[in-house]
């Protein structure tokens, strides 16, 4: 399918790849995803996402991965549904959030291609949220508060974010740093790919998620990303996401690639 297709759309041609070292990406097999939400929970625990206060809603809570359910619009027995886990798509080309931030609180790491958010520099203007076509950015509407005793279980590698700033998935960048530290301690220049896996990928019980370096020709992600059934969300916008989805079902691929074209088959 059209995974590396830069299309013929006049507005949004994707340029040649400019990252030289690595380009981390993810493959999500939608035919395997059961929508269990283990990735959400793992992400929240790993990244010190506080529990939502009782007054929060599904539109104000922080879920760096959000699972959407959609169906093919047919009735029983032809009805089929699919779960789309959507996190930051780590746009490679003209990341919409990077160019709009007025104070450089969003940056792309040129050595990994990971789009990072710098909470301590964020003004909380939310322009990046308005710019993101994947709605994958979340604002801290409340002060982060953990139930008594639970703060003991916080991950020491990740700083909790304060009220009034935006956050999002960064492919568990702290795990990459830990892998680099380990490699350095062992006298190696390169990390062992097995040492850097985001929490959501690790937690997925259906093994629907695969992670790795897209530039590494031998990697599983590189191979799968070029598969005929792989595609990216909103491919036409030309933002070059590094999260790929896979499905044998054509209607699922069409649904993922389309821009706001259909109505009525969405369930949250």
């Amino acid at each position: 399918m059209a995974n590396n297709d830069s299309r013929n759309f006049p507005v949004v041609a994707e340029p040649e790849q400019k990252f030289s070292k690595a380009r981390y990406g993810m493959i999500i097999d939608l035919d395997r995803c059961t929508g269990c939400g283990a990735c959400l929970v793992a992400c929240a625990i790993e990244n010190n996402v506080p529990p939502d206060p009782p007054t929060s809603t599904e539109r104000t809570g922080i879920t760096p991965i959000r699972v959407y359910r959609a169906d093919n619009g047919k009735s029983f027995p032809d009805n089929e549904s699919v779960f789309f886990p959507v996190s930051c798509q780590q746009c490679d080309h003209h990341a919409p959030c990077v160019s709009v931030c007025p104070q450089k609180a969003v940056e792309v790491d040129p050595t990994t291609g990971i789009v990072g958010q710098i909470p301590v520099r964020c003004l909380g203007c939310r322009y990046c949220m308005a710019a993101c076509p994947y709605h994958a950015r979340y604002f801290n509407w409340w002060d982060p508060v953990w139930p008594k005793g639970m703060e003991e279980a916080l991950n020491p590698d990740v700083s909790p974010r304060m009220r009034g700033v935006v956050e999002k998935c960064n492919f568990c960048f702290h795990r990459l740093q830990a892998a680099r530290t380990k490699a350095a301690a062992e006298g190696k220049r390169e990390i062992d790919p097995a040492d850097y896996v985001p929490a959501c990928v690790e937690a997925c019980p259906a093994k629907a998620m695969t992670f790795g370096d897209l530039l590494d020709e031998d990697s599983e992600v590189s191979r799968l990303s070029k598969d005929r059934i792989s595609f990216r969300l909103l491919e036409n916008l030309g933002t070059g996401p590094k999260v790929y989805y896979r499905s044998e079902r054509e209607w699922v691929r069409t649904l993922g690639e389309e821009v706001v074209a259909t109505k009525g088959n969405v369930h949250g």
Partner: protein
Amino acid sequence: MDSHLVARGVKRASPGRFVMWIIPWTLILAIGLYATYLCLSRGLNQTNMDNRFAFGLWIFLDLSVIALGAGAFFTGFLVYILKRDELRAVINSAVVLGFICYSGAVLVLMVDVGQPLRAWFTFWHPNVHSMLTEVTFCITCYLTVLAIEYAPVVLKNRKLKEIPGFLVFEFELHKVMPILAGVGTFLSFFHQGSLGGLYGVLQGRPFAFREGIAIWPSTFFLFIISAAAAGPSFILLSTWMVSRLSRKKLVSENVYRLLAKISGALLTVYVFLKSIDTLTWLNRTAPGFGLSGMSFFLWAPFNVWILFVEIIVFGLIPAMLMLVGSGKLRLGWLVLSSSLVCCGILLNRFVMTIQTLALPTLAFDKFMLYTPSWQEVATFLFVVAYGTIIYSLSFRYLRLFPQETDLKQNPRRS
């Protein structure tokens, strides 16, 4: 009681009447202040904005008041640069309105951002690629210019004028006024445009995204022209309203007619360019994303009617009325037309802010709406009350309309 502060040769309402007028606005101001306090102390969870509707009523308000406040820069440009001396009759009022609009917008922005104390970060590590950086720089500079332009109007107060130092300072300020008007015009042009660019550059939001010239999307230019068109209309409307409320002739009728003519001419250009822009977007930009532009108008309540109302009812009709009828029609028609223009600018800013965010981009996502919380509405009204009080005080104690005394003595000249 305060007659020694009121300008010579003009009559103002009795102090009691004035206080009665101010009290309700002060009450709204106080409620707004409390709502602002709640938002700043407890956080933006006091609003009904959410992760999808990251912008809401306040950004709509910001865009709207800055567009309406454009009358200040455009009148300054016409008076000091193009030497249209007839408009000196409204320049002071325009400056006060501009100051109110811009300072009100900055006040609300400070509540709207999650970390207001970090506002200076934009100046410290600015992202030069962001339209918001341009907006921040220009608005800050222009608000300073407006404050300096406001100063001589204040210093001309009957009592303040008695202080020789103020008089000299005011005289010196007058000398630099054309320079300030030039700087103000440049800054205004840029940030009005950047506010449009704010949405036009959003490649991830096909509804708002526009192609353009070099780094500027078409909305950059459309916002400049629409603001320049709405500014004079807002001055016309506000002058007429103040005139009706105070039951005084403030400017001669030809000033109203000139404002209408300028607004009508600019609005005609705007409607023409906006139509071309809409057609280009429908036939080129949207298909470039592989979709039909009309698909965005399938979602009630934002159907095609909104496009029709914006371009025809609030655009073409007042443009024609003012352009063709500025010399012939009765004043009431011109006031109605300028009201339509102001509604048009509000609707345009509403569409860019609210409709853009309401529409889903992912095909499996929902269309969403949002209703502002009472705290958002109260903060919105806070700005309205703040503006009304500042303007009322300025009207009472400063000479906002230089023609007023003359018109009082020679009513026929109106």
